[in-house]
C-alpha cells in the first residue's frame, strides 16, 4: 500500500510485486486483479496502467480482453484454450516483469472545451450556491486542474475523471434527471465526467462540451482512454456553437 503513494518515476522501474495485488476468479473465463489497496487515487490508477501494459502482449494469443477500472483489472480468456490453473503463473510472471520502459508513451493529454453556462437547465448556479463559491470560482476550480481517466463504463464513452477538488464535491442529486443532454459536463463526489449521449443521470451539470465523447463512425471512437489526462478549457457560448455544439 505504501507503493501506491510512490511518485510516477519510482513506479516505472518495476512491475507489480506480489504484495501489490491478488488474482480472484471471476467466472469460467476470467480472473479479476485487485490492488491490495482498494481506493480511488492516481497511484492506484498508475498501478492498473502498469498491469495493463505488462499484460497487453498476451492479449490476442492468451487473453481475450483487459477491462480496467479504479483499482481492478478484469482479465478475460478463452476457456477452451486456457484454464485458471494454467493461466495464473503466466499472469504472475508477466506482472513481475520490469516495466522500465512503461513511461507515459501511451497516455495522452486531452483538452476538452467547456461552455460553463448559467442557463437554468444546468446546475452551475446551484452548485455555486451549494458550495458557497462564486460561479467564477466554480469554473476556475473545475478547469484549473488536470484529471485522470480512471474508468470507462456505465454507457459507451462515459469516462470517470478524477479527482475533483474537494471544494466542489457534492453528493449526487437525490432525484436523478430523466434526461441529461449529450455533452453535459458533470460533477459528483470527487469525480467529473462528460455525458456522451442524452441519458438519465444524477450528477450536477456545470456546462456543455462540443466534442463528441463517443462516435461509432470514427476511429478512435473516443478522444480518450483509461490512463489519459484531461483538462477542461472554458469557452464562450459563441465558441461552443462554432465548435459544433448544439444549444
Amino acid at each position: 500500500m505504501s507503493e501506491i503513494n510512490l511518485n510516477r518515476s519510482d513506479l516505472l522501474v518495476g512491475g507489480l510485486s506480489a504484495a501489490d495485488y491478488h488474482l480472484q476468479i471471476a467466472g469460467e473465463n476470467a480472473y479479476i486483479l485487485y490492488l491490495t489497496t482498494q481506493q480511488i487515487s492516481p497511484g492506484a490508477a498508475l498501478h492498473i496502467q502498469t498491469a495493463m501494459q505488462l499484460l497487453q502482449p498476451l492479449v490476442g494469443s492468451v487473453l481475450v480482453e483487459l477491462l480496467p477500472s479504479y483499482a481492478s483489472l478484469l482479465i478475460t480468456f478463452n476457456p477452451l484454450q486456457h484454464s485458471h490453473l494454467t493461466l495464473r503463473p503466466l499472469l504472475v510472471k508477466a506482472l513481475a516483469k520490469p516495466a522500465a520502459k512503461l513511461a507515459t508513451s501511451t497516455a495522452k493529454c486531452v483538452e476538452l472545451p467547456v461552455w460553463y453556462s448559467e442557463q437554468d437547465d444546468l446546475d452551475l448556479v446551484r452548485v455555486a450556491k451549494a458550495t458557497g463559491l462564486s460561479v467564477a470560482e466554480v469554473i476556475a476550480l473545475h478547469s484549473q486542474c488536470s484529471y485522470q481517466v480512471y474508468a470507462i463504463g456505465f454507457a459507451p464513452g462515459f469516462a470517470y475523471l478524477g479527482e475533483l477538488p474537494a471544494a466542489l464535491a457534492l453528493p449526487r442529486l437525490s432525484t436523478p434527471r430523466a434526461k441529461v443532454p449529450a455533452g453535459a459536463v458533470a460533477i459528483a463526489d470527487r469525480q467529473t465526467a462528460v455525458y456522451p449521449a442524452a441519458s438519465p443521470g444524477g450528477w450536477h451539470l456545470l456546462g456543455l462540451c462540443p466534442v463528441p465523447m463517443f462516435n461509432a463512425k470514427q476511429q478512435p471512437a473516443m478522444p480518450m482512454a483509461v490512463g489519459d489526462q484531461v483538462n477542461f478549457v472554458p469557452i464562450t457560448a459563441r465558441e461552443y456553437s462554432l465548435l459544433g455544439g448544439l444549444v
Partner: protein
Amino acid sequence: MTSMTVLRIISPGVLSLIQDQGRFAMGALGLTQGGPLDLHSFRWANALVANPVNSTLIEHSVGGLTLQAVANCVIAVTGAELALTLNGKAVQCWQALALKAGDEIALGMCSRGLRAYIAVAGGIAAPAQFGSSATVMREGIGGLQQNGQKLTAGAELALATKANSHINTSKAPVAAAIRQRTLPGATPLQLRLIEGYQAALFSATARAQFYLHTYQVSPQFDRMGYKLSGPAIRCSTSQLLSEGISYGAVQIPPDGQPIVLLNDRQTLGGYPKIGNVLSLDCWALAQASSGTQLNFSPITAADAHNATHLAAARLQREYQHYGISPTVLDTL
C-alpha cells in the same frame, strides 16, 4: 459479398434482433458484449444451414415473428418450442427448411423456452460495428442499420455470402436431447456457480442459504440480466469501487435479491458479486421466464473447465453425427 434480398419481415413479433456471437474486447469503450442469449441454439441454427459459426441471424423473443421469402433460400429455426408454419402448414423446428420465393414462415408464441433463433443459409448481411453485428438497443449499436434498433416490419434481409450448396433439407429434426438442452423442464433449473469476486465477503450462513433455497425468476428480466426473487442474501459490504463485470456474474444488491448478469450487462458495476453462473447454464436461464424456479450449486473452477470442454466435445460429436461439416466448426 452478395446483396440479394432473401427475406422480408412481415411482422417482427415481440422482439426480433440481429445477432452474431457478440462484441468482444470493447469494454474499454464502455461497450457490452451482446450476442445470443442462448449460444447453444444460436450455434445449432447456423450449423443446420451449414453457416460459419459466427454468422449473423435473428434472435427472436417470446413469439409472433412472420417472414416472407423474397427469393429461394434455406432457413433453420431453433431454440424455444413453438408452432412453426410454412404457408399456414405446420413444419418442424431444428432442421433445414427450403423456402421458395413467396413462401411465408410464421413463428407462433413460445410454449417452452423464450428465445428462438432463425438462421438463413449464407448468413444475414449486417455490417460489423466494433467487430460485431450484435444489436444492443441500450447502446444504439449494431443491427441492420448500425443504430441498435430492433427489426421492424418491412425490413429486408440480404445474404452475407453465398449459401453453402451442401445442405440436406430432407433430414428430420435433431434429437430431442439437443433441442431441449437449454429449455426449462419439470424440475427447478440447476445453475452451477463458480464462486469468485467477493464470495469471501458473504458469511458461511449466507452462502449456505443461497445454495439451499429455491429462487424464482422475477418479472424483471431482459437481455442485461435476470433478477431473481427469494430469501434475501446479506453481504458484509454493500458498495465497492466499480469493477469489470464478467458474463454470468451474480450480483447481490442491497435488497439481497440476486441478479444474474448476461449478454447486455453493464461493463462496470459496484455491487458485491458472489460468483458466476456457468455459461452453459446461463443459456438455459435466458430461456426461462418469470416464475421459473431455480437452484444454485457451487462448482470449482476446475469443474467448470471440465464442463465447458465436455460440452464442446459433445457438440463436435453431435455435429459429426448430423453430417455437419467440421470445416464450419470453431472452438469458441
